[in-house]
């Protein structure tokens, strides 16, 4: 085991992006970290090389507790990091960028450092750019150099923070190819990324980060194909939500329909799908459910659409006694509803007294 994180938390003045993270990472493993924006992915991996100082918890790297005051500069030589913005030193040539660390920090003789740097450049097919300046390179080329600059330090683990987010789509692949090659060389890597297909392909394990914790963790297949938790699924499937809440007495059928129309328009949802959603609102909510509820009851209606999987999920939730709207109302409307949806279920949580109707279309 190379890295062990125990109950790590990190707060800034007014936000606590990381609340409680624990995990173990083995030598040679490739870990992808995914999650919505602003959930602390960057914060987490910056904690791993102490670019951010953890508020509490422990990080044990190669058997030593690095949160208990170690020589950070020494640690960072063993934990490399590649940034979203490449951050090559703009006044130095490519070869100087790569040689600077080994020469000044590892005290490698110049000749040796040069040979190694050229060898690494050859590996990423940028040999001919050795004497160029960073501004003369494309984004993808710069990022490849940035990776090489880290490898030249012979780190034991490399942290990537969204290495392809700042690149044009045409350049993403050349950078990912380099990372794939590193996996072949058994490099331990922790990669924060939004490239789902890439993450799925390369990762041994995937962390889904949300709400300040590792919300769900598993192999690529588990996380990407069979996520067990709602939020994970929403995220993986890139689901787009429509959130409508209202009190029973102020239910406005036309207003809700126009909201659905807007939502459909925004995400390019097909006409058939819209009709289905209208049907759910009319038959299930207006005709079956509302008459059974008291006037004060608050109802929440959520539609989630996944473009990739071409599905819509609907959720209706409300508080009170157990009322299952599916059974209510007349036969005809029940029939129409059943034709419109794939699956419909009611559940009741006796403790919180919340009714939930899940619909799949």
């Amino acid at each position: 085991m190379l890295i062990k994180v125990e109950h790590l938390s990190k707060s800034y003045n007014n936000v606590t992006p990381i609340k409680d993270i624990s995990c173990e990472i083995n030598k040679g493993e490739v870990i992808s970290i995914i999650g919505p924006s602003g959930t602390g992915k960057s914060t987490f991996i910056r904690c791993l090389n102490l670019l951010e100082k953890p508020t509490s918890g422990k990080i044990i790297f190669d058997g030593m507790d690095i949160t208990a005051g170690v020589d950070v500069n020494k640690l960072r030589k063993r934990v490399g990091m590649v940034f979203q913005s490449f951050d090559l030193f703009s006044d130095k040539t490519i070869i100087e960028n790569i040689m600077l660390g080994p020469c000044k920090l590892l005290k490698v003789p110049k000749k040796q450092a040069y040979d190694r740097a050229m060898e690494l450049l050859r590996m990423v097919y940028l040999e001919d750019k050795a004497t160029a300046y960073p501004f003369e390179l494309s984004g993808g080329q710069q990022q490849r150099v940035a990776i090489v600059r880290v490898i030249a330090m012979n780190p034991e683990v490399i942290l990537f923070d969204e290495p392809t987010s700042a690149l044009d789509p045409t350049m993403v692949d050349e950078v990912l190819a380099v990372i794939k090659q590193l996996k072949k060389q058994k490099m331990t890597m922790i990669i924060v990324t939004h490239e789902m297909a890439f993450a799925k392909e390369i990762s041994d394990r995937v962390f889904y980060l949300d709400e300040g914790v590792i919300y769900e963790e598993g192999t690529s297949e588990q996380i990407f194909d069979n996520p067990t938790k709602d939020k994970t699924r929403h995220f993986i499937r890139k689901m787009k939500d429509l959130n409508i809440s209202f009190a029973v007495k102020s239910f406005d059928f036309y207003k809700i329909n126009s909201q659905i129309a807007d939502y459909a328009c925004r995400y390019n949802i097909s006409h058939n799908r819209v009709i289905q959603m209208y049907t759910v609102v009319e038959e299930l909510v207006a005709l079956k459910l509302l008459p059974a509820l008291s006037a004060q009851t608050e109802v929440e209606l959520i539609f989630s659409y996944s473009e990739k999987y071409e599905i819509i999920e609907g959720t209706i939730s409300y508080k009170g006694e157990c009322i299952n709207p599916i059974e209510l109302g007349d036969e005809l409307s029940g029939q129409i509803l059943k034709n419109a949806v794939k699956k419909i279920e009611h559940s009741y949580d006796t403790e919180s007294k919340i009714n939930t109707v899940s619909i799949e279309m």
Partner: protein
Amino acid sequence: MKSCGLGSMEKRKRLLIAEIIICIAIFLAILLPNVCGTTTQNDISGDIEGVFTLDGMTAAVINSDVADKTVHNKYPQSKVVEYTDVDEVANALDKENADFFVCSFEEAILLRDKYEELYILPGALIVDGVENFVVIKKERYKYGTTNKTFKDVENAGATIACMSGTDDQIHLEERFHDCQFKYYPALPDILQAVSIGAVDYGSAFDNTREEQLAQFEDIAALPENCYVNKFSFMFPRNDKGNKLCKEFNDFYKKCRESGVYDEMLAKWQSQDESKYVIDVDSYKPDVDNGQISVVTLGKWTPMSFIYNNELSGMYVELTYMFCKEYGYTPQFSIADIDGELAGVATGEYDMVADIASENEERKKNVIFSDTILEEATILVTKADTDAIKEVPKAQAFVQSIKESFVNCFITQKRYQMLFDGLNVTITISLLSILLGTVLGGIICALRMSGNTFCEAFSIIYIKLVQGMPIVVLLLLLFYVVFAGTGIDSRWICVVGFSLDFSAYCSEIFRTNIESVPRGQRIAARALGFSEVGAFTRVVLPQALIGILPVYCGQVVSLIKLTSVAGYIAVVDLTKSSDLIRSATYEALFPLLVTALVYFILASVINLLLRIVGKHYGPRLKPSR
């Protein structure tokens, strides 16, 4: 790429040629006014130099009572001839049966208006409170003449140059209330202003008239006296000053009584320049009662002036004598009258070896010694042109150019003074650049430290220093902060300029450091560089690209800025050229040469910095 390189070569060449052409044009533009057209030169043929040289000559009088007494009093060796009316006098003067005619002002004006060939000598003869004037034959007068009187001055609109530090302000403004006044620090400045026509009239002293008129051929004095000044030395209003003043008064009284004073006067007023030496060694005190700091003008021949690059003059020698008598060792500084007054009022100086007029306002701040000199203030103006001959400027210029040059730089080894001044300027500049840069770095570090208190401090520091004119800063340091500490004013200059320079430096540093993308510093940290390592290896080399050119400019402007050092009694390059200017009454050469020296100095330092930048600095590559 290659053709671009060649093109820039070509362009550089063309630029260089254009630069040279412009330089020549500027040179010609300065020179041309001096060689084109005509200029005036006084025909110095007369034998009468002024009211002082008349003793022994034949005097003519009409009203025997008063005039007789005046002549006997002022010119004891002169023979007096009595005439009955003015026509007779005019005839006698014309035939040179009489050399001069003593009468009242009204009579003199009458006579002059009637006979064009007669002239009223400037300077009233005062006996028993009655003013009399001298009329002579105009062509016998040695200097420039004017027919103007105070009546002409009173006509509204005239501009009068006055000397700051005298009572000119009070008396002249009262007398000529419709006139405009301009203030100058010393007599030579006033005379120069009159000579170049910057003002219509200038105030001057009766006694020093001859000296001035000999230097400025185109200046003439008006006949009347404005008012009589009482001049004396000054001491600060503190215990030390009180004691010194009392001692000085005793000493001065003894001098007058024993005739030492008159001997000295004779020595310093004589034409024999070989006597203008003070044997400093002979004035070493026998007992040691400590040092006293003495300030003097250094611009006033023969009382306090620079001779052979040494501070010299009667008042300087008098001070040495006084110090020997009481066992003091004097430390001399040179400052203009404003500086003398301010310095003695704050106790910066223990004694002013220069006379200033006594008035009530000043008595609040300083102690005056017994009156040393009584002297009338007169007005001078441009001489009438008919009395002076016109010569082509080119001829006069070529004639005078060598003379001026020799006079300004060779005579009395004045170049030595320039070198000393240059030395001071370079020393102050280099030290200030060095200290200012270091201090600037520290301020910049504080500014970027992230500590609220440090940041606030540095922001206030920068705002204060940048918001203050450098002269005010220097004066503050000199008269307030370091007042009475006895620190050499050159060091105070270094402190002042360092403060000023550091404020600009720190901002130059900060803006350029901040312009380096933050990500690169963090990337370096992530590679394992320490904070210092990341700064020196990654941030600084990039920041330097932007810093160097601006820094060079700032250095050049600092060097030029040091020219105000004279404000606090430092004799730097500018001040030494100023002293030469006032000693020689020549403006062109000292100023031209000074400008040239500054130009060369700035260019050389700029070049050095560029070479350093090329060798040790970052490669100047364009960034994205």
